[in-house]
Each structure stands twice: as C-alpha cells, then as structure tokens.
C-alpha cells in the first residue's frame, strides 16, 4: 500500500473533544432530544390520554376504595393524598422502562445507527434519550396531577416545589430509562427485553413505598425499599407535593447519583446494543 497522505491542516479541530467541549455537546444534545420529544408529543396527544388510563384507575379505584376502608394507616393524611405521588412515580417508571424497549426498535429500524454517526459522544446520546424520557414523564405527570386535583387531593401550589417535582421526575426517569437501555444492551432482543421489562417493573413498584408506608413492610421488603431508587423518587414527590416529612437532600442525592451511574453504564453498553 502507498504511504498515508500528510495529516490534514486543521488538526486541532480534528482532535477528540475535551471535557469542556463534551459537556457543551452533551447539554446541546439533551436540549435537542427533549425538543424532539415535545414535537412528538404535539403530534400524538392521544398517547397522553391513553397512558393516563392506568394511573387514573389506580387513583380512582384503588385509591378511593382504600381511603374509604382505612386499610392502610397513613396518619393524618388521607390515603388518596398519600397514594397520588406514588402513582405519579409509577407512571413515570412505566414510560421510562418503555423507552429502553423503544431503543431496540430504533436499532432495528436503523435510527440508532444514524444517531451514532452524528458527532455526539455516546454518553451525550444516552443522557439525551434519558432526559427525553423524563420530558414525556413530566407531560404525563401534568395529566395525572390534574386528575388528582379533581379527586380532591390537596397539592402544593408553591412553584419552587413544583420545579422540584419536575427535577425529581426527570432524574427518576433518567435512571429507569437507562436501566432499561442497559438491560437492552445485555439481552439485545426486543422480545426478551419486553419480558424482563414486565418482570421488573411490577416488583420495582411493589418493593417501593409508592402504595404503603415503609413501616408497614416486612423487614426484607424494607431492605429492598432502601436500595430502590423509586422509593427515593416517591419520597421526594411526597415531600414536595403533599408536605410529608422527608430528607430531600438525601432523596435528590440518591437520585442524582443513581441517574449518573446508570447513564454511564448504559452508554458503555450502547455500542454493543448498536452492533447486536
């Protein structure tokens, strides 16, 4: 073979991006993907309604019945109020897990390949997907919260606390979306992921404090509850929305660390996913 041509002139522009450039790119990509998510939502508003059916059933049927029979002691707060943040977290969880399933579809359809041939670091691509899932979760949350209001749940009107709710939902969704992408990167097929997705979402939900206070759980369940990020998400939502006592610093701390960790793991597995 002949010798390689001389290196192209603008070598500095060709170097792999440093940390500063990487952060800027990541933020720009996150903004882009969130915007696309909003565009998709605008085109398909019916999804907001169909996806509200399940949380609505939980609130209306489960919530109202259990409030009436006082089966679950929640102190001075009505059970429905206690439940509403839990259902909010649940609906965000289901959306986020679905996002990981969607990425396999995107791989099969060539969409993922196309995204990966753009000048976007893997971690930025995954983070962008993760927060896009969060945007959808937040849009869904608006619907669920309106429903809760109609059912008479007393929610905070403090804009700062509502902003906190948005952040908690974004972080929680980012974690579960990346958990799902990680599993996708391990099992590589949509069918297997669907099975696993279904097999883990319900346990994640039931092994959290979304439906009942921690104190009611048997010891082993409490142990699981303490390592389940969903519980910290629920705690944060409960603390912010209905004023239940919680350690918000701990809740947000756990959510930030969990989301960052999972984004890192998922982006390490992304090339494997794209290849398989």
């Amino acid at each position, binding site marked *: *073979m002949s010798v*390689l*041509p*001389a*290196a*192209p002139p603008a070598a500095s*522009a*060709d*170097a*792999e*991006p440093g940390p500063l450039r990487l952060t800027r*790119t990541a933020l*720009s*990509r996150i903004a*882009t993907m969130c*915007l*696309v998510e909003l*565009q*998709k939502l605008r*085109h*398909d508003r019916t999804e907001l309604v169909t996806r509200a059916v399940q949380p609505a059933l939980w609130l209306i049927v489960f919530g109202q019945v259990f409030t009436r029979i006082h089966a679950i002691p929640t102190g001075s707060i009505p059970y429905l109020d206690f439940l509403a943040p839990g259902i909010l977290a649940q609906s965000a969880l289901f959306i986020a897990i679905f996002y990981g399933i969607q990425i396999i579809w995107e791989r*099969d*359809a*060539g*969409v993922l*390949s*196309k*995204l*990966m*041939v*753009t*000048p*976007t*670091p893997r971690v930025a691509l995954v983070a962008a997907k993760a927060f896009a899932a969060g945007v959808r979760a937040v849009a869904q949350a608006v619907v669920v919260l309106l429903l809760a209001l109609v059912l008479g749940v007393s929610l905070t009107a403090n804009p700062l606390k509502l902003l906190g709710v948005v952040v908690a939902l974004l972080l929680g969704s980012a974690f579960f979306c990346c958990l799902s992408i990680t599993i996708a990167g391990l099992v590589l097929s949509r069918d297997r992921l669907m099975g696993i997705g279904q097999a883990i979402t319900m346990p994640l939900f039931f092994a959290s404090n979304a439906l009942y206070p921690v104190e009611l759980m048997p010891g082993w369940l409490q142990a699981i509850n303490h390592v389940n990020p969903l519980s910290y998400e629920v705690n944060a939502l409960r603390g912010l929305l209905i004023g239940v006592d919680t350690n918000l610093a701990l809740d947000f701390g756990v959510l930030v660390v969990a989301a960052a960790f999972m984004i890192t793991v998922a982006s390490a597995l992304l*090339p494997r996913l*794209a*290849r398989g």
Partner: protein
Amino acid sequence: MSTDPASAGSPHPGPAVRCAGLRHAFGTTVAVDRLDLEVRRGEVFGLLGPNGAGKTTTIRMITTLLPAPPDAITVLGRDVARQRTAVRRLIGYVPQQLSADGTLSGRENVMLFARLFDVPRRERRAQVESVLDAMDLTEAADRPAKTYSGGMVRRLELAQALVSAPKLLVLDEPTVGLDPVARDGVWDRIAAIREATGMTVLVTTHAMQEADEHCERIALMHRSRIRALGTPAELKAEIGPDATLDDVFRHNTGDALSGEADGKPADRTIETGGMRDVRAARRTAGRVG
C-alpha cells in the same frame, strides 16, 4: 471512459476513503476479510455484492459504527479509530433500513439532524429549507413522515444526511424496495448534489444495472472479499465484448447469482408502497441473505 481522469491531476491529496486489510467477524462468521479499498475524492463509488457479501459490515466500519483498528481506515485523511468525532462530522449516512421518524414531520426530521451536526443556529433554517427543496419535499415538509411513500422517505433521509453538508455521503442500498420512478428520483438527486458540491459518494447496491449507470467505479464484493475493482467499462471489457455487469457479477461470484442473490425479486414486488411495505421488503431481502 475506460481510463480514469480523476486519478491524474487531482487537486486534493489522498483518497476520500482508504481501507487497508480490513477484517470483521461476528462470532465465527467472518463478514469482511482482508479488504483493501480506495475511494477517490469526488467520485461515485459503488460497493456491489450479493446478500451477505459484507457490504453493510464494511460501511458500518467506515462510518465508525463497528470498531476498526488504528490505521485500518482513513476518511479524508482522518483515522477512523483515533479521530472518530472528526470523521463523523464529515459523513452523511443513510442506513439500509428506512429510518426517518414517522411521528415527526419531514421538516422536524431534517431539523433534528441539523442540530445533531451543530449547524449554526443562524444558518439552520435556511439550510433545512434548501435541502428539503433539493429533495422536492417542501410541499410535504409539514406532514408526518409516516404518511410518506417509500421514495419520499428515502429522499427525506437524503435530506437528513445532506443537511450538514457532508464531504462523504454513504448510502447503504438507497434504492431497494423503490419503484423505478422513485429509484431514478433518488439517483438523479444524488447526481445533482454531487455536481453542485463535489462531495464523494459511497453507495452499496445489488442492482447491477443501476451501478452501471450511476457509479464511476465499482468494487464487487463476494463472501467478505473484494473480487473485482474498476470502472464498469473496464470490468465488462475484461469479460468480453457485449458483456453486461450481470455477467461480470456472475463471473466473479460463481453461482451466487442463481436467483435470490441479486435482490430483484424483492424489488419487483414493490410499487409505490409506504414506509411499512418497504420495510417489509427490506426484511425479506435481509432474510434471503
């Protein structure tokens, strides 16, 4: 046109793509083996071969989607293993599948890629409109892409790939599943863009006729290796007078072309089907290999 004018007196140093000793295996399946390739700047280069020859795998290595060792591939002088981000900036890529986002409008699909390629905000809108116009999609730009025909989706994907003004356009089977009119539509636009910008085009296909008409040079790939390389005229002349590229293909691939491998059956079943039909045809084409 058996001699090649592009090789002499080219103002640019080095080829657009150079692969040296490329190899990739999926488990025990060797998909690409000892592959050497040079695509000259500004040419339309066709990578031809039957299903499973290793075309897509080669393309995926060149586009950074599959790992390549250092010094194995350069794109416009940049090493694919060492300068991945720089290489990605130079490439416009249209994968084998129809990959536009059906829920987004045509314009939103293109705008997404303008953003992902960091097209400056000031130029973005104009750039998006200009590629939509070049692909004749201005009128349909506000409709969701899922309402597009197969040919329109392919043009939309070209628009997505072109919005960043790439130096190298990589197309994996751009015309599979399209009717003859849509196929010509795609090739005509590729030619027009190349004319206007001088970009290099690397295209895979198993339609010999199309390669003959639209590619300046071609490489015939079979069972993970390149078996023949040259201008269509050169390759045909080697076989004999009145030879067609189909003959060249048969000569180089032995019996590989006995029916299913040339992709024509799948092509013929599709007229102006929508995105889903074309996807189905593509899947069939994939399974056949």
